[in-house]
């Protein structure tokens, strides 16, 4: 009663919070040592934790998939086949604006999460709407960039470098598009169903997804655009 019940509230002040020096677990012998032997072994976690963790695993596998596109781009960066290189094509001020839009949308998405924690319908919807508009602005700028490049004959079929460029940046753009569809769905679901536990879990996953997109964009603007334009 005394020691085991106090663990959740005070685990940050424990001398061994990671339970590295855990006592041997006498399973099922009825000893009742009380102390759970380690993370996850004290009983099943709540559904919110399990859903969030599972989605985190999905996001990491998505990032692993992106790493393949990044590797292809890094290998094919100089394979321009006599066509235009990154130095000729990339407009870094446009990339800076795109970066700002996506970073701001990541921030407003976090604000929506804070508003959800406070159970404020109005502010959650407002911040989700701002997030969506910023994301839409990002997508429009990217589409304009792609259209301009294709119009001047630098489409994906021009060289291996451009194929890999359109693959990696386009894949990120597709993710943003899917995220926008998801965001619209979430806004409608909050409007119709309110803050039910399952809706809250979906919102948590959407937040993770949107922040992960911004992480991929950080790698993208650095490796593809900044290094590509300078090299």
């Amino acid at each position: 009663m005394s020691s085991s019940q106090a663990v959740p509230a005070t685990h940050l002040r424990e001398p061994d919070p990671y339970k590295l020096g855990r006592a041997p677990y006498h399973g099922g012998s009825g000893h009742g040592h009380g102390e759970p032997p380690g993370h996850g072994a004290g009983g099943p976690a709540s559904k919110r934790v399990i859903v969030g963790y599972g989605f985190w695993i999905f996001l990491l596998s998505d990032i692993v998939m992106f790493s393949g596109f990044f590797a292809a781009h890094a290998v094919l960066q100089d394979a321009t086949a006599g066509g235009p290189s990154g130095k000729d094509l990339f407009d870094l001020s446009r990339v800076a604006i795109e970066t700002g839009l996506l970073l701001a949308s990541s921030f407003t998405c976090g604000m929506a999460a804070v508003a959800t924690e406070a159970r404020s319908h109005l502010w959650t919807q407002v911040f989700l709407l701002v997030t969506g508009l910023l994301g839409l602005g990002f997508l429009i700028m990217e589409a304009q960039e792609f259209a301009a490049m294709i119009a001047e004959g630098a489409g994906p079929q021009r060289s291996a470098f451009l194929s890999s460029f359109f693959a990696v940046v386009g894949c990120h753009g597709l993710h943003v598009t899917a995220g926008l569809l998801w965001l619209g769905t979430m806004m409608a679901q909050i409007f119709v169903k309110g803050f039910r536990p399952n809706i809250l879990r979906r919102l948590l996953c959407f937040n993770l997804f949107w922040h992960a997109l911004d992480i991929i964009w950080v790698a993208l603007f650095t490796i593809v655009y900044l290094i590509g334009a300078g090299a």
Partner: protein
Amino acid sequence: MSADTNHDSESGDVAPGVEGTSIRAGVQGYLIGLGLAVLLTAASFYTAGSGWIWGPGIPVALVVLAIAQIGVHLAFFLHITTAPDNTNNVLALAFGVLIVALVVGGSIWIMGHLNHNMMPMQEMLQMQR
């Protein structure tokens, strides 16, 4: 954070993206993250645009800045921390980083050596004659 989400702490684990603080602290965390991310982004674009770093060192500086910014995003936006309730999340992240490093680093390494060792196409054609 209200009481009905705090029951997570009973199991000793926390989902990624869950912060568990007041509104004020939550907004503050996101603001700090935004400020640091803006600073690092500005530093990246400035480094690429101006010649204040020795030319061949620019890609290295950019990669370092990007890794720092990804760390900021993970800590302040995704709330992946080193706290005991985050061990599972951090372990999954570590595995993801390992795979990404193997795929990207291995590809660049192997393909660089291949390009280096490959005979130029002209010479190859001449030998076949």
